[in-house]
């Protein structure tokens, strides 16, 4: 059971003349999923930067321990 089904890389790529469908299916899926992961991470970075900026801006106005109560 644990030997490759395909006997050659070419055959693997060809997928018995269904290569286009299989590989574009996996390609598109990979694209969507990867993009989604990246966006999630990027947003994390953006929010942190924004918070840092805001903290610098109104560091004077609001004392750091403002809403400790909500925990």
């Amino acid at each position, binding site marked *: 059971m644990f030997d490759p089904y395909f006997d050659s890389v070419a055959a693997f790529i060809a997928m018995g003349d269904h290569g286009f469908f299989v590989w574009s299916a996996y390609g598109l899926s990979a694209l969507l999923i990867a993009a989604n992961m990246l966006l999630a991470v990027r947003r994390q970075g953006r929010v942190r930067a924004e918070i840092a900026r805001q903290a610098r801006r109104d560091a004077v*106005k*609001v004392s750091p321990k*403002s*809403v400790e*109560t*909500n925990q």
Partner: protein
Amino acid sequence: MDAPRLTVRQLGCERDHRMLFQHLDFSARNGEIWQVTGANGAGKTTLLRILVGLHGFYDGRVEWAAPLSPALLYLGHQPGVREELTARENLEYSRALSGQTGDLDAALAAVDLYGFEDVPAGRLSAGQQRRIALARLWLDGKAVWILDEPFTAIDQQGVAALDQRLREAAAQGVLVIYTSHHRVGDGVHRLHLGQNTEVTA
């Protein structure tokens, strides 16, 4: 002195990432008049909406000694008057909805709308429209009045009458809380929202 009807502890509220007020502490008793002051955008309306339970996103605690909703007479930033309805119809609806009692025409007369009962509110001036809402103060059956900017768009003598009415009610044990730009009336408790929030009795 009896127990406070309203107790506010460490109240704080943030809106679009701006802290409107925080660590707000005060307690109000029946028969007291509280005036909330502050600049535009200070959070007066938001505070009142928190007190009446319309705005739920805040930190800290708001405690009412007796259940609020049956006792509450709330007048929002907007008068809550529909232009398509006549003064009378508007008042009638809010009376039924809030379960107040009392004579509609007397109330309307009390706010100088005698003769305008059957005019669609849309045809009245901004001030008169607010008077329709204010007429509810001349109906009976509510023990907590929370009024947002009751004095705006009301002319001089109207202001006097209204002030008078608030004091009467307080004398009868009603707890009155209202917001206002200009510091009308004295001998009332003040709650100022701003950089340094302060409570003065």
